[in-house]
């Protein structure tokens, strides 16, 4: 059975691809740069007895990325899981983004995951597969930083809630992981107020949970307490939290 990983060339996506291959899943790797993908696919093929294919696609510029992914699945075993650890944040996402910048952020963080999920849904339903989305602690409450990013992630969470509403877990497992800080290229060098998790550890948890029904949960789980606290803060306190 094949798993599709969108955003497979770095961070959590790369860790998920490795973990899936380690667990014997054939893979279609999707990311923007063919060089990264070619090396990833070759490495996984050499280390694990799995089939790998790759698709280089610019999610910000593609109106129908799902169709391209469906084409690329030709020749691979049936699709069993779609994982969407794809995302993009910007330092200047503070309410001052241009229309083009907003469009790019929404395309990568919201439009592409939804469009890909829509396109692959029939194949996933046919195999009673799993669709896995990734949100962010940034979406817990709107702040003056990561404005569009947090909006998109919260929108994506709502989309996954709709999927769960529409499909019994026996027909389609809909899983949504809301991520706390991750040690990745996005957070490298940043002073973070709470510990960052290793992508490999999160990947192990995500892959181990693939067969375990539908849910929305924080990763690592203790971030749920942090989110609860943040959401519980009175407005006059929360609005003072700028950093």
């Amino acid at each position, binding site marked *: 059975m094949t798993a599709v990983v969108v955003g497979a*060339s*770095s*961070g959590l996506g*790369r860790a998920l691809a490795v973990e899936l291959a380690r667990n014997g899943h054939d893979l279609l790797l999707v990311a923007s*740069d063919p*060089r*990264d993908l070619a*090396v*990833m696919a*070759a*490495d996984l093929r*050499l*280390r694990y007895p799995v089939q790998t294919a790759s698709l280089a696609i610019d999610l910000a510029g593609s109106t129908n990325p799902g169709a391209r992914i469906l084409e690329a699945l030709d020749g691979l075993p049936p699709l069993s899981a779609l994982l969407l650890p794809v995302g993009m944040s910007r*330092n200047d996402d503070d309410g001052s983004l241009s229309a083009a910048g907003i469009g790019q952020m929404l395309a990568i963080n919201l439009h592409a995951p939804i469009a890909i999920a829509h396109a692959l849904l029939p194949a996933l339903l046919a195999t009673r597969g799993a669709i896995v989305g990734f949100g962010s602690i940034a979406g817990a409450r709107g702040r003056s930083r990561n404005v569009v990013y947090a909006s998109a992630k919260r929108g994506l969470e709502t989309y996954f809630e709709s999927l769960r509403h529409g499909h019994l877990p026996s027909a389609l497992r809909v899983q949504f992981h809301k991520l706390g800080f991750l040690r*990745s*290229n*996005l957070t*490298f*060098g*940043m002073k973070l107020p709470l510990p960052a998790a290793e992508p490999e550890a999160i990947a192990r948890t995500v892959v181990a949970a693939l067969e375990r029904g539908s849910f929305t949960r924080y990763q690592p789980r203790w971030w749920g307490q942090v989110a609860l606290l943040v959401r519980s803060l009175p407005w006059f306190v929360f609005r003072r939290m700028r950093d």
Partner: protein
Amino acid sequence: MSPRRGFALAQLDLRSFDRSCAARCHVQKPDRYRLIEALPADVQRITRGAGVSYVDASFGEDCVVQDIGAFDRLIEFDAEQGLLTVEAGASVGDVTRFALGHGWLLPVVPGHPRASIGGCIAADVHGKNPARDGTFRRHVEAIELFDPVAGWLALDADDEAGRFDACFAGFGIPGLIGSATLRLVRAPAAYAMRSLHVASLVEAGEVLQAHAGAPVLYGWHDARPGHFGRGVVRYGLEAKEAERLGGRSPVDLPKAIAPWPLCAWNRLGIAAMNGWIQHRYAHAGPRHVAVEAALFPLNEARAYYAGFGTAGFVEAQWLVPHARYADFIEALHSAVSRLRPRISLIASKLFDGDPQGLSFDGRGIALAIQMPQPRERRQAAFIEALTTLALEHQARPNLIKDSSLDAASARRGIADFEAAREQLRRFDPGNLQRSGLTARLGL
């Protein structure tokens, strides 16, 4: 220089493995090819692999450190020819495990299993018997290199041969090594390791030469005045069957080892350790040892390195020509008796190659002399005396090991140093590639 998220710069404190060199550095940690290329072409930089070099070869002040640890993947494997292409951030331990799983072996690997393939090329490291297997350059077929100005270049012995050669012991100056194709050899099932006790370093030299064809060959020696040179020469022959393998499945030595608060290698500690070595290798053998365990003996040396404490250590490694070896040993013994330094261990190896560029190669016996607390007055005085002695005996220094070495000594120890330096800088006319090591040695 302000952090720029486009290529993710952080300020980090980096330290050499011997803890003698440290700097606060701007570090970029790319995980995709476009991020390697994103660093502006006029920015001074140095490539960092695992960061386990004894010296400051992979970091420095006033430059951006490009940490290519994420580029650690296997790219292509020809199981018939034994050709393996890997990204330069791949560790020799990982490559060894993959190769052994397919019946092949990378014959030249340094002791630390986390050393990167790029680092092995940049330092042209030697392995367990350089007299038989040469240095790392002998086992590299091709290199892909990123030049900040020219972009990606494919190098091998036919195409851009000058730059290909310059990559070995080039200390990163010819550019960022992105990937390499390695020439593997068929792996034995195990090594049958034997231990021969020697009473002196001169005897060790004779034993090393008598077993020059062994795939594993090195000596460990006591350096205390009353026991100077006493030790054991270990040599391993290929075993056809992996019968009753000795040696546990090793866990890779960490990249950074937390030092103990105090230095354990005082005179009592050194005496205890040398006694343990004598006891551990009391039996001549043979004892069958897994290939991986034989190649990476440092995996069992975590406590040894932690024991140097926060002040760290220095390893001075000199390759002494055969003709001068006995005289050198006599002079070294005399200096040890006179200055009474604390030397935790001396390691001996046999070399039989032609020195090229700045590589640590030649014909003779190499002695690696490890000393704790190198800044202590008595220790520093001995290190200075050792350098003088070695140069007087026409010994060649190992630039990648010795953080106490200065530019003048390196120039005296390597006859064609200036020509090698000029050759390297031909490929970096803008002086973009620099590290603490290149600055210290005036490369």
